């Protein structure tokens, strides 16, 4: 049972680090728009657009 004394602190550290990550993500407004990024992913040349061509 002594393993619990190692496992439980690890569990607590893991849990609190996830909570901290979550709070950071909320602060970064990552949850404000849940729909657009899902679509943006589908547009393949998002970051590496070739030179713009004027229509």
């Amino acid at each position: 049972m002594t393993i619990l004394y190692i496992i439980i602190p690890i569990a607590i550290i893991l849990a609190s680090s996830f909570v901290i990550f979550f709070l950071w993500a909320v602060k970064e407004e990552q949850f404000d728009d849940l729909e657009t990024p899902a679509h943006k992913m589908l547009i393949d040349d998002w970051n590496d657009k070739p030179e713009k061509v004027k229509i």
Partner: protein
Amino acid sequence: MDNSAVITKAENKQVDDSAVDLKDTHSNCTHCGTAITDGDKAVFSSNGDTFCCWGCETVFKILKKGNFSLINRPSASLPEYDFLDTDSFLQDYSVGVDNKKSMRFFIEGIQCTTCLWIIDQIPDWIPQVENANLNMSQNTLLVTLKEPGYFGKAASVLSALGYKAYPVKSLDEAKHFQKKENHQQLKRLGVAAACSGNIMLFSFSIYSGLKGQMAGMFGYLNLAFFLPILFYCAQPFYTNLWRSLRAGRPSIDLPIVAAVIIGFVLSLLNLIRGNEDFYFDSLSILILLLLASRYFLSRTQQTFINSSYMQTFIESQVCQRWNSESNEYDKIPARHLNVDDKVLIKEGERVPADGTVLNEWVNINPSILTGESLPQKLFKGSAVYAGTQVVAGYAEILVKQTTGNSRIGQILKKVEEQIYNKTPLISLTDKAAQYFSIFILVAGALFFSFYINVDPIEAVKRTLALIILACPCALAFATPLTQSLSLRKAAKKGYLIKNAESLEKLNYVKNIFFDKTGTLTQGQFEFLTWKSPHVEEPGNFSPDQETLDAIYSIEVYSQHPIARTLVKYLEGRGVKKLAVHSLTEIPGSGISGAIDNDNYKIVSELPDENISDDSDIISSLISIYKNEKLIASACLGDRLHSDAKQTIAQLDSIGIKAHILSGDKSVPVSSAAKKLRIADGQFSSNLMPEKKSEIINNFPDSLMVGDGANDSLAMSSDNVSIAVQGSVESCLVAADIYVTREGVSPVRDLILLSQNTFGVIKRNLVFSFVYNFAGGLAALLGYISPLTAAILMPVSSLVVLSSSAMGTKFLRRFNKINFSFNN
């Protein structure tokens, strides 16, 4: 598509040698910009553009055609969006981010990834735009400009692309607060989820029968994880309870807080005494589930259009005022107009204030006030109202009433007042949960005071079991969840429901009032059919080519909208323009002229009221006379939406009566009613906006469906209202529900959705009442210990949760119904 303009590589070898060079000079596709690697698939257009495939070439051509030419001219912008760049408007609507001007727009017509792609290209098309950031869950677009730039340009391009853009007021304090509140809620939810998850894990050992010192350790771990929930996550419940107690209306939060505090104290005592009866797990799950349901509900309900964005565009529009000192027209915002100012209004612009016409004549479209489909010709000295649109010629008016005091201004003011006066309906479940929680607390207290003399320890245990078990959280939780699932589903389909109460009200609707022009009909004047002068002649009549040529040649000189519609129709029919002499305008009715030796007269007549064909509405009949003999008639009018008849029949079959309220003349209204099989006495015409609202208020449980400013007053009354696609902004603000899909069928969909939603809610209510009463009784009789109650309670919540989730099956069915109706 015009194939001759495009030459494939295979063909161009024979046709034009110079085109071969194109392949070397253009290594990138003109449309998508990717390098062309497969020469066989490449397409070369005759004007030197290269495309990687036929698809790109087609899309490029479509984009280049028509409205898209606007994008090529950076200076071009539509005059109707000029007001966006006036100082007074910018003050309220623009936001400064890093010294750059930004404005938020609500965009109508966002559908899918392609819309996102197109809107993301805007900075490439308009050099002045720095950034265009689309938020698809709220349908808003944040446009950031470079210096110098104009928002009007961006809005014009959006409208050229087929989207309608409404500016949204810059994030004021209320909005900032709402955003912070959202983040706060989300943080609480996250912390509660993490803590309750760990508590569940630690409690597992105790449920498995762990005893003694180890159990105590896990108990203290539970306590450690419970403290953030108690002091941080559960805070909204305390503040809500405090607020409701101060208002003298105990809310659902009362038993929740009671259960949390009593449960916490008892668990703490048990922990100190070395007992294993903890309720940390069930309490934390309770808080988590409640927080989650409340968060999802509030997220669903926050749409961007709400009453604080009430802004009359007419007031912000730029207009040209005569300056007698400099002898020229100054551009000023309409709200700065004074009585007795002289204003010039060009074709296509809206009249900024009530006044009288100073020039000879002008054609105006009065539909914003009356909903009437036909333009009116106004002569010198007649009154003209703010908001109406000049459709032909120009108008010079003398201002009699300023914009704010104009008729439309008054209506908008009333709309705004009524919105603020709208009393929120306390939903059924909230009321039920309120009474229920008081009842439980009173029952618990009574039981406790009687039983304490019999067995004090047992009294505490049983009372606690009662409170935990009977806490109407299933009740409070299931309704918002079901509602928010429905709201979300509706939003996905393009129906924006501003609050859950409207969804509830739809359930009780017995009478639906439709506006005619633009709601039941498409709102555009178009050519419908030819009619033979001989009644006995069967359908499919068409005048001979000579007559068509004559009509075209004469009507081309007329500015009247009817003539323009006819000309536009005939232009697509290969007519020739003939020489016309002795053209004369017949005031108020038509035009006459002579071609060779024949005299033609084209006049509009009131249509026959007993038209029996059942396809369209006919609002106007044009008769063509050749040498004083009737040779043909043309029917022009407004087409009914293709789904209107079906929808009204379906509504009738579920016991909902349809009515028409129109500002239009009686003939088109009664013919529309006849075609939709709406009984006599259920339609009225020639209605002013005030009258519409009066009629609606006489019918409880009614629904108003409309699109114009003349409907917005009726919409802002207590009854539920729907604004259809393409509505004016005052309508968007006044209506409870806004539909972004074309046609009338969304009305039926929404009513079905509401009825199904409330079916599920009722099922949940019945379940939770039965559960609470049976469980509460069992707890009082001592059959259920607090621990069992604590386990049973989340189980009951789960049952209700799955009931709600299963209820979403009807939503799938709702889609299917839709599908079969549409086909």
